[in-house]
């Protein structure tokens, strides 16, 4: 089997991740609740993961700013609702996932509105101009930026948008779902970032059901759920400090232990090496696909991330995916839960076939997949 659906979740996971999950299930109890050995072991595993993540994202002295969530969607919901729970206006990129659009739509009843800074895929300058215009004109309460699109792999100019936001004192939320683990993100260098949201199970190679919310500012803390935190128990009110404010109930101990092993794996390989590997796979895929007649690749020379969308003329993207699945190749078709991105890229009617890579993929797998796609194209036309 060839697995090219790593933008959905990386697969397989490093063996150390599985081992860490099994160890946690065998040895760890509920963290932050008791003072006995299995409870302390669990607490230590969770804290180790906080430290590892804090180091990876440039805040080594502030592990309390690392909040564990179920996934990036959960993190984005906390982030968006923390800033906009009483209403307000947001400016978002044209590449936001439904995990941003749907919370915003749900908040309309609280008076929330939003505008989209639309741009063509890989038109970085266009994206920046769109953000500049909207931010200048609308003075939003919040800006939301998808760092790297899960559809096309195009990168938003986060640093430049950060400068604009900072000049207006507007908090920025970054969706790092596709960039965490393959692009350096240094929280300490982003002045306006209030929250950075990411899954643990994609580029960080952790288990399913893990996510991270980096809380860069403590001005906006709005809990989605309240309950036991193992702290300040006599108070009927939710703690107002990190990470407890966002972490009620027993956490996903085995998942977080696995995530810790995933981050260690990533650090051992280095984020830059991962990016380089994905870039070489991307180049090979683009080269192979471009030789096939009737293939439309959505890419550019500036494209470096390990996510690649293409279409075969007149073929439904899901039909192509089904054929590839029947031939042992796992890819993703359709709209990738990001119809807004497909609108910006002009692919909303048919969706795209998406290949997405991890450190475990090889150029040989690319060659084999290109050959199968070519075979499909020959039989289709």
């Amino acid at each position, binding site marked *: 089997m060839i697995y090219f659906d790593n933008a959905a979740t990386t697969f397989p996971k490093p063996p150390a991740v599985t081992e860490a999950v099994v160890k946690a299930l065998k040895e760890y109890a509920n963290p932050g609740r008791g003072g006995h050995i299995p409870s302390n072991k669990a607490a230590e595993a969770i804290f180790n993961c906080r430290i590892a993540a804090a180091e990876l994202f440039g805040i080594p002295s502030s592990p309390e700013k690392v909040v564990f969530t179920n996934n990036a969607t959960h993190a984005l919901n906390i982030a968006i609702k923390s800033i906009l729970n009483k209403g307000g206006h947001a400016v978002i990129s044209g590449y936001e996932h439904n995990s941003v659009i749907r919370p915003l739509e749900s908040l309309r009843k609280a008076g929330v509105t939003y505008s989209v800074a639309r741009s063509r895929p890989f038109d970085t300058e266009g994206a920046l101009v769109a953000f500049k215009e909207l931010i200048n004109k609308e003075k939003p309460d919040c800006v939301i930026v998808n760092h790297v699109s899960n559809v096309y792999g195009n990168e938003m100019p986060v640093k430049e948008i950060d400068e604009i936001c900072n000049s207006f004192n507007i908090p920025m939320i970054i969706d790092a779902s596709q960039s965490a683990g393959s692009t350096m993100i240094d929280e300490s260098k982003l002045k306006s970032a209030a929250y950075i949201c990411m899954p643990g199970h994609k580029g960080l190679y952790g288990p399913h059901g893990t996510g991270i919310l980096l809380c860069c500012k403590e001005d906006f803390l709005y809990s989605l759920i309240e309950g036991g935190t193992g702290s*300040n128990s006599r108070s009927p009110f939710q703690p107002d*400090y990190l990470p407890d404010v966002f972490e009620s109930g027993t956490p996903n101990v085995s998942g977080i232990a696995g995530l810790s092993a995933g981050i260690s794996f990533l650090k051992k390989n280095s984020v830059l090496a991962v990016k380089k590997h994905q870039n070489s796979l991307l180049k090979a895929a683009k080269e192979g696909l471009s030789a096939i007649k009737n293939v439309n690749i959505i890419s550019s020379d500036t494209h470096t991330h390990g996510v690649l969308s293409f279409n075969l003329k007149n073929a439904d993207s899901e039909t192509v995916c089904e054929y590839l699945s029947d031939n042992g190749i796992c890819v993703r078709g359709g709209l990738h839960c990001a119809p807004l991105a497909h609108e910006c890229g002009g692919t909303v009617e048919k969706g795209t076939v998406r290949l997405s890579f991890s450190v475990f993929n090889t150029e040989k797998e690319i060659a084999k997949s290109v050959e199968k796609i070519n075979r499909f194209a020959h039989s289709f036309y």
Partner: protein
Amino acid sequence: MNCLILFKSITYAQNAAIKLKAANINSYMIRTPVSLSGGGCGYSLRIKCKDLEAAKKILAKTGVSFISAFRINEQGKYCVI
């Protein structure tokens, strides 16, 4: 003689333990005694009282906040410092 430094959550206590260890101050994390916690449920670091002043300075310098500190006397009772 031992002292206790109380923290508002386990994460703060764990973070403090790392900072103290880096300064060669050993600590041991325990559940905060209910009679001291006030708010109920919390974690503390037990350290040697001779290290307390240095520990407070390190925590202040590294930005790890704590609630209060207690000395444990010969009878095992806690005296606020």
